[in-house]
C-alpha cells in the first residue's frame, strides 16, 4: 500500500537570481494551496547546508514523503537534493524539481509572467511528485580496466596515472607512434624546456608500463555497453612490419625505392620520408610502418624484382601478408584524449599561405626551429627564388581564432605565447633578425606568461597592434598590409618570412568519436563537458571522460592537469569495483504486454528480449528488460501500443498529470 502523499514544496531565491524576477512569496503561497502540500517554504539558497537542513527537518517533523524543489535546473542540483532526502531516510526518487531559474527567472524579465510560469511549473512538479515511486539503484561489477583514446601528452598522462594506480589500461593511438602534438614542439613556453626531453621519458614509460597495453597504429571501432562494462573493439591496422622482429635500425627506409619521396607528416610536410618509415627518431614504439597508400608493392603488387625493404631487413620483419587485427576487450571507464588539429590557413587566402613558401604556420615553425627537425634547427626558408636565412620576420596572431568569418569565435589560448616563444627562439638563432608581431590583444594569463611576454619585448620583438588584411609579394619580399590601430597608420611592411599563429581546431575526424561514445559538442565544436564549471572532465555519457585539447584549446600544463583529473575520475568506478545502475529504467507490465516485440526492435541497447511465460495456462511471449543494459531513454514506451513498458519516474501516469497541470484546465 502506498501511503497518502505528504508534500513539502521549497522555493529557492538563489540569492536574487530567482527572487529578483519571481515573486517567491506568491509562489510559496500558491504551492501551499495545491493538493497534498503540507509545507511550502522559500529560502535564499536551498542548495546550501541550511537550505537542505530545512528540507530534512520538515521531512522528520511533518512526516513528508514527497519533496518538490523549485530552483535551478535538475541537471544542476537533482543529485544534491536526492542526497538530502536519502540522508533522512526518504527515498531519493521522491523528489521532483521545478526549473524556475534557467527556464524561469533567467530567461523572462517580466516579473508577473515569470511568477505565473513558476507557479505553473510548481503545480506540474506537485502533480508528478505525488505519483512518483520509490526506486533503488542497484550495483554491478565494474571491469577493472580503462581505455584511453589518443596517446598525446594527455592520453599518456592519464594512462600512466591509471596504470600507476594498479589498473590495466588500453592506450589506443591511431598514428604509428605515441607522442602526439607535444612531440612536434621544440621548446615549451614560458619555461623553454625542451619539449621532447620532458615528453620522451613519459612515452617510454607508457610503452613499458606493465599495466599499459599500448595499441599504436590502431583505431577504436566500436564501443558498446555502459559505465563499468564497456565492450570495446579496436582495429590494429597492419603495419606490414612484424613489430616483434623489427629492431628499428632504419635500413629498410634507406633502401626503399621511394626513399625520402613523401612529405613527413610529423614535420608538417617540411621534411621527407620513405614509403616505409618511422615518424620521428624518438618514436615509440620504435618500429617501422609501411604506408599502404604509398608502398609500390602494396599499391601495385610489385616493387622491382623484389621489395628492397625485404632485402634490406636483416631481421626479416617485413610481412606483406599482415592483415588488420581486431582486438576486443572490456573496460570500466574511458578517457578521450584525441587532441586537436591546427587551423588550415588556406581558409584565409588573403594570407597567401598556399601561394608563398615563406608563409608558414606556427607548427611548421616549431619543426623549423627544432634541432630534430628537417633543417636540424636552422631557420632556412625558400622565398620562391632561393633558400635564405630570413632576417625580417613577421608573426600574425589569431589566424583562425577569434574569427567569426572562419567559424571560430574562440581564443585558442596558446598562440600568443607560442608566438612569443618562437620570436624568442628566432632572436636566439638569428640575433640580427627583426621580428614583428601583429596582434589584436595579447593574452598572457598563465603562470609566468606575462613575465615571458615582457622578456621577449625587452629582447626587441616589436608588437604591432593590427590585424593584417593581406600578404602579397613585392620583389623577393613579402608585404604585410596592416593598419597599426594604435597610431591609425596604414602600413606595408616587408618581410622574408611570415609565421601565421594558427589556432587550434577540433580534430577533423571527431565525428567518429562522437558517434562511438555519444558525445556532444559545444558551440566551438570541441567535445562538451558535463558541466562547464563543476564537471569539466565528465561527459554526458557516464564513464567517459575528457582530457586535453579535444575538450578545448589549452596549453601543456592545463592538459596534463586535466588528464590527471580525467584519470582520477576514471579511477572511481575502477577502484570501487562497482557502478550503480540507474534506477530509472524501463519496466514491463507483463499482464498487458502482448509480446509484439516493437520494444525489442526499438531498444538501442538490446536491453529488451521476449521471454515465454505462462499466462493462465497459455504460453505467451512478453517483453523483459535487462536492467543492467537499459539506459531509461523510454523510446520503447512511446512505441508500445498497449503502454506495457514504462520507464520508471517517466511513466505515462506520471507525465500525463504534468501535462494537465501545464495545460492548466481546471
Amino acid at each position, binding site marked *: 500500500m502506498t501511503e497518502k502523499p505528504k508534500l513539502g514544496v521549497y522555493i529557492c531565491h538563489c540569492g536574487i537570481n530567482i527572487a529578483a524576477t519571481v515573486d517567491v512569496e506568491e509562489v510559496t503561497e500558491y504551492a501551499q494551496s*495545491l493538493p497534498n502540500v503540507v509545507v511550502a517554504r522559500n529560502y535564499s539558497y536551498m542548495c546550501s547546508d541550511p537550505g537542505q537542513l530545512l528540507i530534512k527537518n520538515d521531512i522528520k517533523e511533518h512526516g513528508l514523503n514527497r519533496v518538490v524543489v523549485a530552483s535551478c535546473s535538475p541537471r544542476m542540483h537533482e543529485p544534491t537534493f536526492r542526497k538530502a532526502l536519502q540522508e533522512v531516510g526518504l527515498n531519493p526518487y521522491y523528489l521532483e524539481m521545478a526549473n524556475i531559474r534557467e527556464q524561469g527567472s533567467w530567461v523572462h524579465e517580466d516579473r508577473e509572467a515569470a511568477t505565473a510560469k513558476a507557479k505553473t511549473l510548481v*503545480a506540474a512538479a506537485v502533480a508528478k511528485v505525488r505519483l512518483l515511486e520509490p526506486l533503488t539503484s542497484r550495483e554491478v561489477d565494474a571491469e577493472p580496466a580503462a581505455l584511453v583514446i589518443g596517446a598525446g601528452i594527455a592520453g599518456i598522462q592519464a594512462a600512466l596515472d591509471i596504470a600507476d594506480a594498479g589498473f590495466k589500461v588500453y592506450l589506443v593511438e591511431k598514428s604509428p607512434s605515441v607522442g602526439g602534438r607535444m612531440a612536434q614542439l621544440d621548446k615549451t613556453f614560458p619555461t623553454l624546456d625542451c619539449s621532447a626531453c620532458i615528453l620522451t621519458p613519459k612515452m617510454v614509460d607508457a610503452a613499458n608500463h606493465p599495466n599499459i597495453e599500448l595499441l599504436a597504429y590502431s583505431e577504436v571501432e566500436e564501443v558498446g555497453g555502459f559505465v563499468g562494462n564497456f565492450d570495446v573493439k579496436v582495429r590494429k591496422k597492419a603495419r606490414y612490419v612484424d613489430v616483434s622482429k623489427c629492431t628499428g635500425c632504419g635500413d629498410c627506409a634507406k633502401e626503399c625505392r621511394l626513399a625520402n619521396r613523401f612529405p613527413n607528416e610529423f614535420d608538417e610536410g617540411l621534411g621527407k620520408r620513405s614509403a616505409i618509415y618511422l615518424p620521428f627518431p624518438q618514436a615509440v614504439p620504435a618500429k617501422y610502418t609501411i604506408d599502404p597508400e604509398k608502398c609500390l608493392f602494396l599499391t601495385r603488387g610489385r616493387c622491382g624484382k623484389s621489395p628492397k625493404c625485404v632485402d634490406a631487413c636483416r631481421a626479416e620483419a617485413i610481412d606483406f601478408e599482415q592483415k588488420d587485427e581486431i582486438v576486443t576487450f572490456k573496460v570500466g571507464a574511458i578517457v578521450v584524449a584525441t587532441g586537436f588539429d591546427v587551423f588550415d590557413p588556406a581558409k584565409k587566402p588573403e594570407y597567401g599561405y598556399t601561394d608563398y613558401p615563406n608563409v608558414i604556420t606556427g607548427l611548421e615553425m616549431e619543426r623549423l626551429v627544432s634541432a630534430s627537425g628537417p633543417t636540424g634547427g636552422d631557420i632556412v626558408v625558400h622565398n620562391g627564388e632561393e633558400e635564405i636565412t630570413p632576417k625580417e620576420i613577421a608573426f600574425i596572431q589569431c589566424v583562425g581564432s577569434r574569427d567569426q568569418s572562419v567559424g571560430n569565435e574562440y581564443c585558442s589560448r596558446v598562440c600568443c605565447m607560442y608566438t612569443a616563444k618562437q620570436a624568442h627562439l628566432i632572436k636566439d638563432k638569428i640575433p640580427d633578425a627583426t621580428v614583428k608581431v601583429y596582434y589584436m590583444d595579447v593574452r598572457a594569463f598563465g603562470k609566468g606568461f606575462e613575465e615571458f611576454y615582457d622578456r621577449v619585448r625587452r629582447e626587441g620583438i616589436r608588437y604591432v597592434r593590427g590585424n593584417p588584411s593581406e600578404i602579397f609579394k613585392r620583389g623577393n619580399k613579402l608585404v604585410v598590409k596592416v593598419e597599426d590601430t594604435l597610431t591609425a597608420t596604414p602600413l606595408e611592411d616587408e618581410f622574408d618570412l611570415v609565421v601565421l599563429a594558427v589556432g587550434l581546431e577540433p580534430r577533423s575526424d571527431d565525428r567518429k568519436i562522437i558517434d562511438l561514445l555519444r558525445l556532444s559538442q559545444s558551440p566551438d565544436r570541441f567535445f562538451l563537458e558535463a558541466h562547464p564549471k563543476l564537471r569539466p572532465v565528465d561527459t554526458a555519457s557516464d564513464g567517459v571522460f575528457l582530457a586535453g585539447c579535444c575538450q578545448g584549446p589549452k596549453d601543456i600544463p592545463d592538459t596534463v592537469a586535466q588528464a590527471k583529473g580525467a584519470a582520477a575520475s576514471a579511477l572511481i568506478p575502477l577502484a570501487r569495483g562497482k557502478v550503480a545502475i540507474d534506477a530509472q529504467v524501463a519496466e514491463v507490465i507483463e499482464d498487458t504486454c502482448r509480446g509484439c516485440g516493437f520494444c525489442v526492435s526499438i531498444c538501442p541497447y538490446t536491453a529488451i528480449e521476449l521471454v515465454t511465460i505462462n499466462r493462465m495456462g497459455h504460453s505467451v511471449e512478453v517483453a523483459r528488460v535487462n536492467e543492467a543494459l537499459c539506459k531509461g531513454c523510454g523510446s520503447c514506451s512511446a512505441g508500445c501500443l498497449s503502454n506495457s513498458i514504462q520507464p520508471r519516474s517517466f511513466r505515462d501516469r506520471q507525465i500525463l498529470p504534468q501535462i*494537465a497541470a501545464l495545460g492548466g*484546465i*481546471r
Partner: protein
Amino acid sequence: MSAMLLHKEKWSEFTGKLSGKNLWAPAVQGEMKKFARVAEGQTVHLDEDNTTVPPKALVFPQTETLCRFSLGQTDLELPGLDEEMVLLGVRPCDARAMALVEKLFRWDFEDPYYLERRERTTLIGLACNEPDLNCFCSSVGGGPASPEGLDILMSDLGESYLLEDITEKGKALVEEFKDLLEEAPADAVKQKEQLVEDAVAKIKWNVDPEGIPEALPQLWEDPLWEKVSAACLGCGICTYLCPTCHCFDIQDEVEGPAGRRCRMWDSCMFAEYTKHTSGHNPRPTRRERTRNRINHKYSYFVDKFGVIACVGCGRCSNLCPVNIDLIDILRQVKAAR
C-alpha cells in the same frame, strides 16, 4: 381520452408553435438519425424510418453529471433541473421502452436524475404504418400504436394526423393547441385501428416469446450460446442503441483539485463490464455476455417486473455489423427447449 384531427396543412403551424416548447424531433445527421432540437419556428418532417439512436438518450443521457466536487470542500454541487421538453414523433416501441425502464429506475431506489427528467418530458408518439424489416413489437406485448409511455399518440391517416391524448400532460397539450385541431369523426379512429391491423400483418420476421422466459434458465449451459455469440465483436451497438438497455457506469473525472462524478452508458457486451479489480471476470467470453443480454431482457426483467424488457424495435438485429439477429437467437432458444 379525446381524439382530435390535425390536418396536414396545419402541420407546419403546429410544429412551428410546438417548437417554442423545447421541441425535439427525429433528424438525420449523416447516416445517423436521432432526436435533435428543433429550432424555433422550424417545421418538423416525419417519415417512416425510426431513429438510429432511440429517444432514451434524451431522458437517460449517454453521459450525465451527477455532481461536482472539489478538494477540501464537503459540499457537493448538484445539477439543476433540465428544461421541460417535448419529443415529437416518438415510436410507440421507444415510448414503451421508457415505460419499462422507468420500472427499473423506480424500483428499490427512486433515481431522481432519471425520474425528474422523465417527468419533465412530454412524448408525442407516431404510430407505425409501415413496420421496418426487423420490427416485431406486436410479439412482445406492444404494437404499432401502443400508447404505453406516450402522452399523446399521433396516427398518420393520410390527409391528417389523428391525435389521441393518453395522459393528463397530453390532454393539456392538446387543449393548448385546440385552435389547430378539430374533433375526430368516429371513422377516423376506426381507420387508425385498420392501419394498425395492416401494420401488424406486415410483420413477418418475428417470434412468439411464449415459453422463452421459462426456458432460458434451463438453457444456461446450452451450446447455442457459443454458436450465437461466435461472430460477436463485443461492441456496444446492440446495447447502446437498444431503447430498453439502461446499464450505466459511474466514473469520476478529476482535473487537478476538482472534478465531477458522472454516469455514462455501459454495455454488458463489453469485456470490462464485469471485470473485477482482481482481473477475474465472471463473464469471461462473449458467450456469457450474449447470454446475459438475452437473459436480462427475456428472463431477469420478467422475474422482477413481470414483463419482457424488449420492445421489438429491431435495432439490435438491424444494426449489428455481423448479423447477430435477436429473432434468430430467440428462435434457437425456442428450438432448444
